[in-house]
């Protein structure tokens, strides 16, 4: 493909290009649930792969989880291998509040966000004295402990212990949501419309509704985090990551900002937990053990630490790589089925390859390709 002519940053053309990009993105986000409401299942080399709306919703939850981890690890550079602890706490808080106090899912955020923020700050206080590797070590151990806390006898009758907890409330699409109408419209479009089902079953409608709910929650999270990171706080965090001494010398209060980063990171992680609980209607102790903690790190690195786009790519990667791997019944040319642990092995390989070949993650690679194809000339600030 030939590269386009460079446009000046902030110029009209540049802005138009940005608007078109975002509009395309919005279009895809809105259309996808209808296109895959009947699970999309292409067959490649004799293997049937599925792209279900459920997988996608789960991936959205994971994106927000990685976004949270990104704040502590990607932006302020504190290796946290225990982020699954916050995600799990958020999920369980939501589950218990919905089940025992009959709150609605969204209202549990009123407890999850401040609760997890305080929790994260408390967690961040020991992290002040513990740096780098030692912090990784401690957080790794904390992640490992979460399932056994859930299984403790004193709390097991509330948390469901090893069996997990089925959440009572169903997220049914409210009557005002025009999901049925949109489906009809899309179905009427010639060409593309053929992929959209004639009408949605009750379960499909619920899945589409959940998807949009999760997308909106994710957008709010990304927008808030972007705003936090674009300002004073974000600059302070990046300064701490790049050179703590220099940051301190320039008047950044290391202790305050580090604990703050853990607080925000945990709060966002808690929201991710709520989202995952909303998606599956079930929470189990082993979902949030250290395998999830490691997966989130994989997602962070594969997507690109310290970038917001990276969280999106990472969430998709850690959801779909194991999923598709387990659906590979026969590897072309062999009779190997990539079931079970193959998915984890592939993710591990991906992690190492990314570290070797693309240290900035896929987000960085994407940015480079974009800069090549659609160059933007930076402009000096005016005024």
């Amino acid at each position: 493909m030939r590269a386009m002519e460079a446009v000046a940053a902030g110029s009209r053309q540049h802005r138009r290009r940005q608007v078109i990009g975002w509009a395309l993105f919005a279009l895809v986000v809105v259309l996808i649930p209808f296109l895959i409401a009947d699970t999309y299942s292409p067959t490649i080399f004799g293997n049937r792969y599925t792209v279900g709306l459920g997988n996608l919703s789960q991936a959205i939850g994971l994106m927000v989880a990685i976004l949270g981890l990104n704040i502590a690890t990607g932006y302020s550079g504190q290796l946290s291998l225990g982020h699954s602890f916050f995600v799990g706490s958020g999920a369980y808080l939501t589950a218990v509040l919905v089940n025992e106090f009959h709150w609605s899912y969204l209202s549990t955020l009123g407890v999850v966000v401040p609760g997890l923020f305080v929790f994260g700050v408390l967690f961040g206080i020991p992290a002040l004295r513990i740096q780098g590797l030692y912090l990784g070590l401690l957080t790794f151990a904390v992640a490992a402990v979460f399932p056994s806390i859930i299984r403790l006898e004193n709390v097991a009758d509330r948390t469901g212990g090893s069996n997990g907890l089925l959440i009572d409330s169903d997220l049914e699409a409210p009557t005002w949501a025009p999901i049925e109408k949109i489906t009809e419209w899309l179905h009427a479009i010639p060409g593309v419309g053929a992929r959209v089902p004639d009408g949605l079953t009750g379960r499909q409608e619920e899945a589409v509704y959940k998807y949009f709910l999760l997308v909106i929650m994710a957008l709010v999270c990304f927008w808030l985090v972007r705003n936090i990171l674009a300002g004073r706080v974000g600059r302070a965090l990046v300064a701490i990551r790049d050179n703590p001494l220099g940051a301190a010398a320039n008047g950044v209060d290391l202790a305050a900002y580090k604990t703050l980063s853990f607080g925000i990171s945990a709060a966002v992680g808690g929201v991710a937990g709520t989202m995952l609980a909303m998606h599956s209607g079930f929470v189990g102790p082993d979902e949030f053990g250290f395998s999830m903690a490691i997966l989130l790190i994989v997602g962070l690195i594969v997507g690109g630490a310290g970038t917001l786009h990276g969280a999106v790519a990472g969430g998709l990667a850690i959801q779909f790589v194991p999923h598709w791997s387990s659906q590979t019944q026969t590897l072309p040319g062999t009779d190997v089925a990539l079931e079970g642990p193959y998915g984890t092995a592939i993710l591990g390989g991906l992690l190492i390859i990314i570290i070797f070949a693309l240290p900035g993650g896929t987000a960085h690679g994407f940015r480079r390709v974009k800069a090549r194809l659609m160059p933007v000339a930076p402009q000096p600030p005016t005024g």
Partner: protein
Amino acid sequence: MQVLASVLGVFDISLDKLSNGELWLAQFFRGLSDGATYASVALALVMIYKSTGFINFAQGSLALLGVYLAYIFSVEQGLPVVVAVLCAMVASSAVAMLVERVFIRPFPPDHVLPLVIVTLGLLLIIDSAVGIVWGFRTRSLPSMFPSGAPIEWGIAQLTWRTIGNLGTVFAVVGLLYLLLSRTKVGLAFRAVSSNLESARLVGIRVGPTLGFGWALAAAIGTLGGALVVPDLLLEPSIMLRVLIFSLAAAALGGLDSMVGAVLGGLVVGLARNLLVTFLDLSELALATAVAVILVVLLVRPTGLFGSTRVERV
């Protein structure tokens, strides 16, 4: 007495249990045995930390691989267990050297974060590879030591296995000490771990020396795994649990002290067994390990025997 009993009742502790000397002794012995196994994996962690300055999260996985090899050699090929474990130690150190050469050496050794992430990737790969090759069925590996107990006191037994585990760990520390202080490669190893740049300047080949450290750590880890597994059953997730306790042990002893790793392992093993028995905290066994790590890192980040890191600004 009444008051004490009611206070203890809150924690579900009975005085009968606390005044049961045999139970104390029995748990003490079990603690020693567990502690020895934690110590041996902690030793492997310390070896890596000493040479490279980072924590190898794949250490448990390399040990896991070694233990499976030992299983193949002993149960499937019919070698005596001790010989099988020795063969597995050699094989796993070869794998570790290869891993170090391919995945670790390309990175600058002073840039820790990518290295730690690579070891996390290795953890995922090796653990799932073991699952792919050998499946998730549990197996049992015979112990290297005879069964039975030479010393018995009611329910408290000091078994041959406990004695063997302890003896093995102390023997390993002794041999390591000799290796590091009396041989040329040991000298090179100490030079590299003390100051990488200076070591390179005086002509020590840093890469192979670090590879040697990895091989040594994998061999020790495999031996540790061979001590652990007879108590539990062999399945792919076994070393992860041991890894947490061993990390606690290594942190307690100071991440760069071998004696510290052994003592740390014993303390963690004892603490785990005594607390779990007397406070009825069987689900919190892992949490005690985390509590140990947290308290040590907060109160004395260098551990009991670790050397203080001096940084020049």
